[in-house]
């Protein structure tokens, strides 16, 4: 009786403790908007099945540690029934114990061994190998490891080692029970809350990386993410789902080349600030040092918005669009940035011709005139949106020429705008919502006036704007515009193009905003294959691609390296591409070649060409037959 009462009290206390801490972590005054995402529920459930139950991401990023983790996690599921039975005994009285001879006992025992191997392996890694990315040694990890080992050994002892109901068995039962209840105490106040928050965060994660939210309609106080009260439900989930594994940081190009940005620390600092009752999230380094803010402007503005962190995260955290870029937006909207480069980008874009380089529209005008590009007037099917890269960069103009040849060979009906401004991408990614709102408003008017129905662009950044960011603008959304990146258009056109493939070794650099931001990796490869390329993949390819260094406005903000103290993102990426031995680095974004060619010049590798997939394909077009 005494034992049953003691058990009941302990159980109640543990559960109360658990609930209290979960409440402490999740009960904060936050926003309702944007709400949790429920679209595409099937896809989301499948994602949870793969990433949680099958542990695909955990294993993909770190095979050994991932497998060990999977053993522990699968063991937990296997133990659900064991634990239920174990606890029910506490209610029913230990005298009800019977020797276990069911098949399930054997099954659970096998898992107990697997879990023990898993947890000992992970403990060895964490406390002996001590990879730097895990950060300082964590006491709770040791406690949790000890509790798990205790749970497993006490289970094995209770299953076969001790006589059911004996005094030793009873002691063993109590040790197992206390270990179990101990987990209830430890989990909600540590990163082990990821057991609960992780799967939920995975379910509600965006379908592509780096997605930004629209400002709350009619809420004049919404200037971006400024205070902890600006968090949305998914943000709260994210902050508590973090398991501190550092996969994000390992994947972050800025961090890899030695900059201070550490996406894991951004999330953890936000978590600390939230739990400590902080008010404003981000500010200058001085403010951070004085304890007034939790995340620094400096770190935020190193982000390339490439989404590698989100792609690597095993628990569905959205570091970029929903945190870093939104925090930038908060700083910029209140005019609290101190970086001259950031200010220059905005003041440049504010003035005509409204492009991030501030270069005259004259160059584009001359180019269109010389090339006799058709102007879009609403009668053509496709608006070929050139984007600043194709408009102003000399290499971009080569890509535009190639596109022209292919589109005409494929009998596509297309035209370009006589005058283009920036769509607002670098401004918005760098945090200047006002600039974006101004530019998008004017552009939507143009699209309405010209009756645009389909947009084709070689720029995955623009494609992202028109296919995601702009969709929050009702006047734009009502136009029902279809958006294609040229890799999609070209892949679609392949059967109708007169091609003469030539075999050559090519490596493909997946643009972040195409592979992760749009989810496309097959289309550009299909285009390359049709042109005869034999593809040599880099280690970082597909959705795990490594940024060229241009994203998130960094092309214009420029890494401000005073000296040669660290690597540059583009140098690192180019070295990886050059190491494949391919003489051609194919790209599908106008900014990657700017960065990669710069790196090639630095490396003195004139022998490696950086070419857009359109240029490669256009070279394989058979010359048009002379018509009579």
């Amino acid at each position, binding site marked *: 009786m005494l034992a049953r009462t003691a058990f009941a009290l302990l159980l109640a206390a543990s559960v109360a403790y658990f609930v209290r801490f979960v409440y402490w972590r999740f009960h904060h005054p936050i926003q309702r908007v944007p709400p949790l995402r429920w679209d595409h529920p099937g896809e989301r459930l499948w994602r949870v099945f793969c990433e949680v139950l099958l542990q695909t991401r955990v294993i993909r990023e770190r095979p050994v540690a991932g497998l060990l983790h999977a053993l522990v996690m699968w063991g937990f599921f296997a133990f659900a029934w064991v634990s239920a039975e174990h606890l029910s005994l506490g209610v029913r009285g230990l005298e009800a114990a019977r020797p276990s001879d069911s098949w399930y006992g054997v099954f659970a025992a096998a898992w107990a061994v697997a879990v023990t191997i898993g947890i000992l392996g992970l403990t060895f890694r964490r406390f002996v190998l001590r990879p730097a990315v895990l950060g300082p040694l964590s006491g709770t990890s040791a406690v949790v490891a000890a509790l798990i080992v205790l749970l497993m050994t006490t289970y094995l002892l209770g299953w076969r080692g001790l006589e059911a109901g004996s005094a030793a068995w009873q002691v063993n039962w109590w040790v197992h029970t206390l270990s179990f209840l101990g987990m209830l105490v430890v989990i909600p106040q540590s990163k082990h809350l990821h057991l609960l928050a992780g799967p939920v965060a995975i379910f509600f994660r965006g379908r592509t990386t780096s997605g930004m939210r629209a400002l709350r309609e009619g809420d004049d106080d919404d200037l*971006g993410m400024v205070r902890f009260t600006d968090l949305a439900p998914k943000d709260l989930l994210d902050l508590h789902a973090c398991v501190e594994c550092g996969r994000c940081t390992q994947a972050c190009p800025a961090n890899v080349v030695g900059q201070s940005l550490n996406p894991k620390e951004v999330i953890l600092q936000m978590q600390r600030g939230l739990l400590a009752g902080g008010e404003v999230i981000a500010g200058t380094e001085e403010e951070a040092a004085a304890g007034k803010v939790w995340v620094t402007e400096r770190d935020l503005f190193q982000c390339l918005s490439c989404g590698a962190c989100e792609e690597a995260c095993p628990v569905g955290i959205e570091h970029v669009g929903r945190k870093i870029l939104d925090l930038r937006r908060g700083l910029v909207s*209140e005019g609290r940035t101190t970086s001259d480069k950031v200010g220059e980008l905005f003041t440049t874009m504010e003035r005509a011709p409204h492009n991030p380089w501030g270069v005259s529209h004259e160059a584009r005008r001359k180019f269109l005139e010389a090339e006799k590009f058709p102007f879009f007037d609403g009668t053509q099917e496709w608006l070929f949106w050139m984007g600043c890269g194709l408009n102003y960069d000399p290499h971009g103009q080569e890509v535009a020429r190639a596109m022209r040849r292919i589109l005409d060979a494929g009998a596509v009906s297309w035209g370009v705008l006589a005058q283009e401004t920036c769509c607002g991408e670098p401004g918005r990614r760098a945090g200047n919502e006002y600039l974006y709102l101004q530019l998008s408003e004017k552009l939507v008017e143009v699209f309405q006036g010209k009756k645009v129905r389909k947009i084709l662009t070689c720029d995955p950044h623009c494609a992202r704007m028109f296919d995601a960011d702009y969709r929050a603008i009702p006047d734009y959304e009502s136009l029902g515009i279809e958006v294609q990146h040229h890799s999609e258009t070209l892949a679609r056109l392949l059967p109708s193009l007169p091609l003469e493939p030539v075999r050559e070794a090519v490596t493909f650099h997946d643009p972040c905003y195409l592979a992760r931001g749009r989810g496309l990796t097959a289309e550009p490869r299909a285009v390359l294959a049709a042109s005869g390329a034999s593809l040599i993949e880099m280690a970082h390819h597909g959705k795990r691609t490594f940024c060229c260094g241009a994203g998130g406005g960094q092309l214009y903000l420029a890494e401000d390296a005073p000296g040669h103290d660290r690597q540059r993102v583009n140098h690192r990426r180019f070295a990886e591409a050059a190491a494949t031995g391919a003489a051609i680095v194919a790209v599908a974004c106008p900014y990657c070649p700017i960065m990669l060619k710069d790196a090639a010049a630095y490396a003195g590798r004139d022998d490696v060409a950086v070419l857009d997939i359109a240029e490669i394909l256009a070279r394989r077009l058979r010359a048009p037959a002379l018509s009579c």
Partner: protein
Amino acid sequence: MKIVVCLKQVPAKDSLLRVEAAGGWVRDSELSYEINEPDAFALEEGLRLKEKHGGEVVVACAGPARAAAAIREAMAKGADRGILVEDDAFIRADSFSTARALAAGLGGEAFDLILTGLQSDDLGFAQTGVSLAHLLGLPHATIIMQVEAQEGGLRVKRELEAGWFQHVEMPLPALLTIQSGINKVRYATLMGIKKAKTKELKRLTLAELGVTLAPRQTIRRVYVPQKTKRTELMEGTPKEAAAKLVEKLKFEARVL
């Protein structure tokens, strides 16, 4: 410090300028407009002085109705209120007329400091500020690269030619024309735009002010200069090409 910043709205720098059939002016219906760039530096300097010494920044403009947008933009960046002397004549008026209108528009209100940009990016007369100073009986200095308040007035840094500078001291009230690059201009923020909606913009007409414009000079005709902006390649041996380039740089481009 009570500061007035005079600004002008000009065709956006990158505008494609087409001369109207009569040749008297450009086809301005096709243009977009923005704050004259040197004036943006003057505004920034005014805002910085206000942030440092307190006071008020008032934006004054003589221009057509559309110029209100430039004043709104200035208010979004932090100016407190605006005055627009509204008339289409200001689109191509001479500086003398503009200065007289601005002097009248300020309506005898006492200010400590008046700032303007060095010159406008469209007409480029570079006179309005100095002329206004004379009309208001104020001392002035031009091409200013630094402004410091000191006991009894100002100490400013004037840019001279060939890398020389000069400090000049003067009493207040005074007028300064600001050189581009004196500071780093701030960007417009979402918060600023929201605040600007409630700020006061006073619109005045020439009739209300009792001013009749009497221009001292007029633009009779505008036209595209002969010089075509094509790259001119120097041919010949290296020696010949080099000599031709030096000749061109000296007498055509006049940069040596």
